[in-house]
């Protein structure tokens, strides 16, 4: 598209100023920045356990390794910093590195600083940590149980915060309503997983006691205070900078801040700049994820489907530590708990619990996906239970168009909208009638096809005070009010009269620089290319506030608005300067096509640059009421963002967009795979500044939501083992899985923002997962009770519903099972073999270290440490995957010479495993039959990255043990008989004796 000089840029899809560099490989991302000579690399030692005490950390070998400058433990870090601030009143500490105890797989335990990353990783492997595993808890409901393992003993339990809220008169409404309809909803963990991981470079200047930290942090800059406090320096001794480009964030890069502290300390100890680029395994196991949540939601419903009250009970799982700004995920939506609906009564119970999982943090949608999944599944349940049309139930409850600005029951002030019209337009323009016809036709042909709906109010521009709703009114009164959302923007003019815009918005791909150029170029009548924009941050030089950064969809409504105000102020001044030079009234001055001139008289004009530079070259000629025209910095915060009221009412966000989605989904009859047939998404995000970028945000959010709906899950075993450690396990959608949604817009400008814009981009993460779930539910069961849908919706979950009862086998084989989700990675199996040796002989072998040495796969140096206890070093693995482990083996339940239980535990760099097997010896006609049945559990790195192969691998290793035992008992193994017979024998053992 050509830039047309006479039309305003705002509202047009101009090409992005960011793109030429990004397309040419000239972006400046974190790992691209030049580094000072002598900069060291850092690698972390991380916990392989979900929950364990750290008995000792032996660093001697690592410290002596080539290139190593420093090895630093949690205790070393603790000695130099303060605990990070925790957002609720609770007796708990929050350290950026584990001290004495690990609470999630991936938690940093030590850091190694070396001359390069390869050497740092070599040395990290040599840090020997002795752990005493503790019981783990990964389910938030289980974490509340009386006897659950407690993560933080100082808390006395895993509940770190509980609050109850009451708005209107919910009890009376429930009493009066003819129907009480409720559902339970489990929302799993997922994460937005940017393709660029975290990165930090830190240095420390002892003379000034000052840290200089560059990180691909995204804000909010309230975190700057958390980091400075933890590092025990005033804010002016922490210079925080961000790189010009950031490779996606979607909230996640807020969570880099504990690493800023750690890198700062590492640089201080190493006395040199230190750099760390997070790798993908670290990112998946230990950056931040969204919260998982267990919700009970009930509605009081009138006969026509009108909802008069809601009752929420939310249990929020924030993982192992409550890190700033959590529990914000739970409270971000607090003003919006009635969604798009006019519901005046509400009760809310919020509990925040800690479990042995990665700490949580910002993720696109931030609280919306969890909350709307419950609310919109409830809307579906209401329609089903009452036999009403789903759309009718939605329509009857929408906030009416004439009610704006509308104060919700819990205190949000919905700025603008016309929900009913937007919905009706979507129904018409999105072709719902046609979609229904497709569904009916499919069903008539016996196919499984369903349609789902979802309605969402999408908040943007967070009130920095909403998180204080977690405090009681008394606690808030004591702490002082917190509110607002300061946005900053600077517009500057240099001596050549060219314009620079500086904001603290830290974009990660949202094209902020382009939009600001549009806004400011329009204001000054300049070509787009004449305005240069910087959006990265240097806290020592730039204007910023705690609200700065790129989160809560605040750019278009807040930051672009602040830039608009700054440019307007400068323009007003320039108008006065020009008026004096042109001998006209300031009101008659126009800014057009690079010139400042008299309205209606093109000959009477001056070049913009000449007027703009006056303050530099000839300040004495400025009119008396113009101080300077060189720089204008604006701080803007909307008055609507007030602190929570004494009744816990909170206007949690400034702007409220509206989304209405519907979709059609078909389930494949042969494979049970669900497929989106059509998806329609209607958005009201206020005034649209750049249509292509708005659609880009919608599509991007939609794609992530498709991932959350069908593919993505942070999976943990019951023992806290993390099972989604690679991108082959944590599955992001590719071009093949993401259909093109039909995007529609309905614009009702926000009266509260300078440009009328609202945020956009998070909404589909809120609306799409539940819209899909509703469609799948409709496909599975068009009428009657709603099937329970738990994300991600996989074919494996749908299979029993699609294929029905499974046909049994006529000749059942002994099952080898791995229960991946319910019981950690618990493997069970069995096998048998017949050997030519007596029971007594075999029995003796089992108690003899020399035999054990021969039969334990890969063992070297089996030592007898007790009558029935042995220690060994073993090398275990399959194919190229081999690792050294220290193993403890114990024999118990001895019934000589008939049966014995063999228990083992192995710990090594690749992970840890434990298991026990019952071995029985029976005389048969062919010889002694050795039969075994085992149960094993595996955790640590190998469970995180090799889960898919683990069960088979364990089977191979365990099979190898018994093969060796059989060979040994048989009196000479391979040499004793024809090779073919041996192979048959081995084959029969390895396959459980059947195939």
């Amino acid at each position: 598209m050509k830039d047309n000089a006479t039309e305003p840029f705002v509202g047009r899809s101009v090409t992005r100023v960011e793109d030429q560099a990004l397309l040419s490989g000239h972006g400046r991302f974190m790992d691209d920045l030049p580094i000072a000579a002598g900069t060291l690399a850092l690698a972390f030692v991380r916990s392989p356990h979900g929950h364990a005490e750290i008995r000792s950390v032996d660093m001697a070998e690592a410290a002596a390794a080539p290139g190593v400058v420093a090895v630093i433990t949690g205790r070393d870090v603790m000695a130099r910093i303060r605990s990070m601030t925790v957002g609720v009143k609770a007796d708990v500490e929050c350290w950026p590195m584990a001290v004495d105890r690990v609470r999630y797989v991936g938690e940093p335990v030590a850091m190694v600083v070396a001359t390069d990353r390869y050497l740092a990783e070599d040395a990290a492997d040599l840090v020997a940590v002795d752990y005493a595993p503790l019981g783990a808890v990964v389910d938030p409901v289980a974490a509340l149980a009386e006897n659950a393992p407690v993560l933080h003993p100082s808390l006395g339990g895993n509940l770190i915060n509980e609050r109850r809220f009451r708005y209107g008169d919910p009890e009376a409404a429930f009493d009066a309503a003819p129907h009480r309809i409720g559902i339970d909803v489990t929302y799993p963990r997922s994460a937005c997983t940017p393709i660029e991981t975290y990165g930090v470079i830190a240095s420390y200047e002892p003379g000034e006691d000052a840290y200089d930290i560059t990180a691909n942090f995204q804000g909010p800059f309230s975190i700057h205070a958390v980091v400075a406090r933890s590092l025990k320096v005033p804010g002016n001794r922490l210079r925080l900078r961000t790189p010009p480009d950031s490779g996606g964030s979607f909230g996640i890069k807020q969570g880099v801040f504990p690493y800023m502290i750690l890198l700062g300390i590492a640089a201080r100890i190493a006395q040199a700049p230190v750099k760390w680029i997070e790798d993908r395994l670290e990112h998946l196991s230990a950056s931040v994820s969204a919260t998982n949540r267990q919700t009970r939601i009930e509605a009081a419903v009138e006969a026509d489907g009108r909802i008069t009250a809601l009752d929420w009970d939310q249990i929020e799982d924030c993982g192992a530590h409550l890190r700033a700004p959590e529990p914000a995920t739970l409270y971000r939506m607090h003003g919006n708990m009635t969604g798009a609906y006019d519901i005046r009564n509400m009760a809310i119970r919020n509990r925040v619990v800690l479990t042995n999982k990665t700490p949580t943090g910002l993720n696109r949608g931030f609280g919306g996906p969890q909350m709307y999944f419950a609310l919109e599944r409830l809307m579906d349940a209401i329609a089903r239970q009452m036999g009403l049309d789903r759309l009718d139930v939605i329509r009857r409850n929408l906030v009416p168009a004439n009610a704006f600005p509308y104060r919700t029951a819990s205190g949000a002030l919905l700025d603008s909208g016309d929900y009913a019209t937007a919905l009706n337009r979507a129904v018409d323009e999105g072709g719902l009638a046609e979609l229904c016809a497709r569904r009916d036709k499919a069903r008539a042909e016996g196919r499984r096809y369903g349609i789902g709906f979802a309605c969402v109010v999408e908040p943007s521009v967070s009130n920095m005070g909403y998180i204080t709703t977690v405090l009681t009114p008394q606690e808030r009164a004591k702490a002082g009010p917190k509110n607002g959302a300061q946005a900053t923007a600077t517009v500057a003019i240099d001596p050549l009269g060219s314009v620079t815009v500086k904001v603290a918005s830290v974009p990660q791909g949202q094209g902020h620089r382009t939009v600001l150029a549009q806004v400011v170029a329009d204001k000054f009548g300049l070509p787009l290319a004449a305005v240069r924009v910087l959006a990265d941050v240097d806290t020592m030089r730039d204007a910023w506030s705690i609200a700065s950064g790129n989160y809560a969809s605040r750019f278009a409504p807040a930051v672009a608005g602040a830039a608009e105000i700054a440019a307007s102020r400068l323009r007003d001044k320039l108008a006065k300067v020009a008026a004096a030079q042109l001998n006209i009234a300031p009101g008659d001055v126009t800014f057009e096509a690079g010139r400042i001139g008299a309205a209606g008289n093109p000959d009477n004009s001056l070049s913009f640059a000449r007027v703009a530079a006056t303050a530099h070259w000839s300040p004495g000629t400025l009119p008396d009421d113009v101080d300077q025209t060189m720089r204008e910095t604006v701080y803007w915060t909307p008055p609507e963002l007030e602190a929570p009221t004494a009744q816990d009412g909170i206007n949690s966000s400034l702007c409220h967009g509206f989304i209405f989605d519907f979709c059609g989904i078909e389930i494949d009859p042969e494979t049970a795979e669900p497929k989106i047939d059509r998806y329609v998404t209607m958005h009201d995000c206020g005034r649209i500044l750049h249509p292509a970028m708005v659609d880009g945000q919608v599509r991007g959010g939609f794609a992530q939501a498709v991932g959350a709906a069908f593919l993505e899950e942070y999976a943990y075993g019951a023992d806290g083992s993390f099972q989604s450690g690679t991108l082959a396990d944590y599955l992001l959608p590719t071009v093949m899985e993401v259909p093109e949604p039909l995007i529609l817009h309905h614009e009702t400008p926000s009266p509260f923002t300078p440009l009328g814009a609202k945020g956009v981009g998070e909404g589909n993460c809120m609306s799409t997962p539940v819209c899909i779930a509703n469609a799948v539910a409709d496909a599975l069961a068009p009428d009657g009770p709603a099937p329970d849908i738990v994300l991600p919706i996989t074919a494996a979950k749908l299979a029993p519903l699609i294929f029905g009862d499974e046909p049994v086998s006529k000749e059942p084989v002994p099952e080898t099972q791995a229960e991946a989700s319910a019981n950690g990675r618990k493997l069970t199996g069995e096998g048998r073999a017949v050997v030519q040796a007596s029971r007594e002989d075999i029995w003796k072998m089992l108690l003899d270290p020399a035999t054990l040495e021969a039969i334990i796969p890969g063992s070297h140096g089996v030592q007898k440490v007790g009558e029935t206890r042995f220690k060994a070093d073993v090398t275990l693995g399959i194919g190229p995957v081999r690792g050294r482990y220290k193993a403890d083996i114990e024999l118990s339940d001895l019934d000589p010479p008939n049966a014995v239980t063999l228990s083992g535990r192995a710990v090594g760099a690749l992970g840890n495993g434990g298991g026990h097997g019952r071995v029985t010896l029976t005389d048969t006609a062919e010889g002694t039959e050795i039969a075994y049945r085992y149960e094993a559990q595996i955790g640590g790195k190998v469970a995180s990255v090799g889960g898919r192969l683990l069960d088979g691998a364990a089977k191979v290793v365990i099979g190898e043990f018994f093969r060796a035992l059989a060979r040994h008992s048989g009196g000479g193994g391979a040499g004793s008989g024809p090779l073919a017979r041996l192979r048959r024998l081995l084959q029969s053992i390895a396959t459980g004796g059947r195939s």
Partner: protein
Amino acid sequence: MKPAPFDLVVATDLGEALEALHQGGTEARVIAGGQSLVPMLNMRLARPATLIDITRIPELSRIEATADTVSVGAAVRQTTLERWEDLADRLPLVRAALPWVGHTQLRNRGTVCGSVAHADPSAELPLCLIALGGSVTLRRRRKTRQVAARDFFQGMMSTDLAPGEMIASVTFPTHRKGTGYAFREVARRHGDFAIVACAAIARHDGSATLTVGGVADTPRTLDLPAEAADLDDRLNEFAWHLQARDDLHATARYRRDLVRHLGRATLKEALSCRD
């Protein structure tokens, strides 16, 4: 996430590679495309002392066709085979399966024999090799042997390869007139490891085989009459017999469902395209 240290031997003829492999013993590994091995090196799951790069050995870089067979050398990349002009005529099953192997960027470096050596139970090429009754030619210093594919694969990532031994080539029997082939697969996403992959071969004599990957520790074959009346029963018994397991991506039950349903569809397709 960087590899642990190793020596790299860049062999330029087979003798050199075999000598280095012999010297390296159990601590040496062959690297060709590296598309399975390098992720394991980067994650430090594998820490060989020596890697032997065989991609510059001309005699391993050939596709050799005889009247009944096609042999693919150990350095032949998957893309090279995919683009081989006779592929569709000689190895229709392999042609159908190759696009399912990872992504084009991986096939551009990954080798056919490397996938066989890696012996992932979900991988497509071992599945084809077993389905077609192919064989693996193994070399070590002063010794060559040929092993039938069904004996070569012994379990999850476990093969008949001995220390000091490497795959020199794999050999596929080629298409005979009157035979129909079909390949189908279900994975979480396009290009992912198969939850279940099915290769069906229907012969003109009315016999058929269904070979299934992704379920048992190695691909397994069911022999049956192409138009068995009790097809569903046979598929069900086969499905149970494979002893499927739950993992992160699918349940054992779903794998059995796919053996029953996808297996049936794959057989039908093979039957319908006999030429």
